[in-house]
């Protein structure tokens, strides 16, 4: 493997890790809210979160590019803060990927929260646990399988993205050139041998991830 290939693999893993951590932090409150709310906005928020499931990545990437661009609201903000522009940078890629993989993390966690039901939370309240305490000591442990699925899916989905990376990140070695883009480059340059290495690696990786998901995901324990 060439060093550019290794750099792409390393960048991909770094991107997926950062995005997964970010998604767990951002996705958990969204999932909790969606699981617990009786607000009429639930449908709207749920639909927005799920949008990346159906939209072509290029559409999402296009709007993010415009928003983060020099004339977009996000772009103006980042410029005003002295951060420069986000497109074609690693942070920009992270933000775009976070949007793109959001439903893959939110939905499993939301389902897990919903499966807990009202009762364990009520029991915790009658045992002197505040809502915050209950969230950490009852809801999160009981939703663990959902967190596991969400993290695996979020990570794997970020590793597998292509369209949005091209739109936001372009093709800067070491900064935004991830494995999927690298494969594309190899194919363009007719370097099929290198493409094979990376593509085969992706197939193996994806298979192992799904295998782990289906094998180790513990069946939900019922409240007794």
């Amino acid at each position, binding site marked *: 493997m060439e060093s550019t290939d290794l750099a792409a693999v390393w960048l991909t893993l770094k991107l997926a890790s950062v995005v997964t951590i970010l998604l767990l932090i951002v996705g958990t409150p969204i999932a909790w809210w969606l699981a617990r709310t009786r607000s009429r906005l639930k449908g709207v928020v749920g639909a927005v979160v799920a949008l990346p499931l159906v939209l072509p990545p290029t559409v999402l990437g296009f709007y993010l590019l415009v928003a983060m661009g020099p004339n977009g609201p996000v772009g103006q903000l980042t410029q005003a803060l002295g951060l420069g522009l986000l497109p074609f940078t690693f942070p920009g890629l992270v933000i775009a990927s976070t949007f793109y993989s959001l439903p893959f993390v939110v939905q499993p966690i939301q389902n897990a929260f919903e499966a807990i039901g009202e009762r*364990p939370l*009520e029991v*915790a*309240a*009658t045992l*002197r646990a505040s809502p915050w305490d*209950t969230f950490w000591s009852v809801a999160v442990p*009981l939703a663990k399988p959902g967190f596991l699925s969400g993290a695996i899916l979020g990570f794997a989905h970020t590793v597998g993205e292509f369209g949005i990376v091209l739109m936001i990140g372009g093709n800067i070695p070491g900064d935004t050139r991830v494995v999927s883009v690298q494969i594309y480059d190899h194919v363009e340059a007719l370097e099929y041998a290198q493409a094979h290495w990376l593509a085969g690696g992706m197939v193996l990786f994806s298979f192992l991830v799904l295998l782990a998901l289906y094998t180790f995901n513990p069946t939900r*324990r019922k409240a*007794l």
Partner: protein
Amino acid sequence: MSPEIQARFRVDRNDFTLAVDLTLPGHGITALFGHSGSGKTTLLRTMAGLERAPAGYFALGSEVWQDESRGRFVPPHQRALGVVFQEASLFPHLSVRGNMEFGQKRTSTATNRFSLPEIAELLGIATLLDRAPGELSGGERQRVAIARALLAAPQILLMDEPLAALDLKRKLEILPYLERLHRELALPIVYVSHAPDEVARLADHLVLLDQGRAVACGPLNEVLARIDLPATFADDAGIVIEARVAEHEADDLTRLEFPGGHIHVSRRHEPVGTLLRCRIHARDVSLALEPPMHTSILNCVDATVVDLAPTDTPGHVLVRLDVAGNPLLARITRRSADKLAIRPGLALRAQIKAVALLG
């Protein structure tokens, strides 16, 4: 003097209204009895603060947990109460010990009257502490749930049909523990039930709920002996007496004494002096003007008619009797009542055909 419980709530829902104004004693077991839909579970949940009655007042002694007229509502996790639900609802991610410590860890040690080993011993779960909830039987789980609630240092224990989800065998397994709680802990218990047997066996006070209203509230026997109420207990009308084991007789009978007389039952294993609760169904009591001479019925007491009222059973009346200050109910046919000219003040003999010993 233990603190009184004051509960005034009004809950209006589309199809249901709960409107109660109760003063309950701050000791012993108070049963909230009623059919499903009578509002007993809603009342209990409102007491716990799990539901908020828009108009409500709830206080245990000087501790006011809800007073909507002043906008006061203490959330459940800040109330010193324990709740036992119909399903044990143990936390599956914690061991038995972890479940029991959950509330204990969140209360200050100063307020905690009970230690974990004591409570585990009391409820017979000391050997189960390291098990996972999934490895327990239904009865064991419910005992752990009770222990967990007690260890959170409650000043009142609210139990929502804790036996309803269990089969008869498990029920009989748990009842002695509940009686033990009752005897050994000075803790007021509010106990929701729709099972007359459980109420007769456990309760000291009884609140009858019907369609969201408290139709009667008072000491168990006072309420049970009221014949003016809609027949909530229906075929189960009857009273409860506390009798003392007086003597084990040679012919395999045990004589029980209660103020007003004595009754014989099949030999009991309890030692002389033990107090036993017995239930005497109205349908098992017949009346005679003369002391019956030739009868197989052994148990016969002097009684005075207080009043009588029709029952839901066609052709029958319910007669309330006074037996040396204790109430007794008899269900007889209207024809017999007419023939014997049963009227208030009449002195007669009440024959007790059967006694159900509780516990």
